[in-house]
């Protein structure tokens, strides 16, 4: 059974600092997704990582995937308050079986203080 674990689960940081959220998963997969959720809102897709070594960047967020280590990271550069949200990673355990049956991590609640 695939398990997806994020750490930290809670992160409070100051504006302007850098930090990394880690996503570990327990079985082989080369398909990993990052989502963002604002309080009271739904999930918004950030990145889809489809192969070992994949790196994607959007603004102050950069995601990478190491399938051999079964690890993805979401790096935040020079954080700003608008990035405060809960971030989820999700792994597709069976990427060649049609519909994406994602297994989600617990989520990392990120709070960025002025």
């Amino acid at each position: 059974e695939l398990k997806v674990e994020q750490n930290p689960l809670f992160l409070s940081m100051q504006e302007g600092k850098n930090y990394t959220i880690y996503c570990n998963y327990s079985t082989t997969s080369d398909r990993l997704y990052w989502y963002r959720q604002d309080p009271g809102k739904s999930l918004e897709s950030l990145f889809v990582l489809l192969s070992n070594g994949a790196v994607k960047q959007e603004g102050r967020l950069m995601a990478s995937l190491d399938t051999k280590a079964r690890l993805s990271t979401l790096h935040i550069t020079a954080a700003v308050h608008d990035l405060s949200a809960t971030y989820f990673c999700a792994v597709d355990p069976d990427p060649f079986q049609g519909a994406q049956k994602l297994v989600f991590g617990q989520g990392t609640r990120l709070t960025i203080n002025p």
Partner: protein
Amino acid sequence: DVKVTQSSRYLVKRTGEKVFLECVQDMDHENMFWYRQDPGLGLRLIYFSYDVKMKEKGDIPEGYSVSREKKERFSLILESASTNQTSMYLCASSSNPGVEKLFFGSGTQLSVL
């Protein structure tokens, strides 16, 4: 933009009631999903459907059923609601092939009293 619409934002039901949660998507997506979200547990897949009238169990199907009579609509049914089904329910859809991201609805917060 893809729109996934869930019929209710908040619902309060009594134990033993039959509950219907409705979801409609407007992008002709083949795949539709129902997740529940609980604090500290992330999202867990209840059921999904990859075509009209086709459904498959996810990780936690017990106590739930689904219906997909039309491509754009996917319903989650709680046959006899229980208090442990109090949760946020999220519907999602996606297109094939299976690399595409999921688009989520805004969620239904269900309270079972």
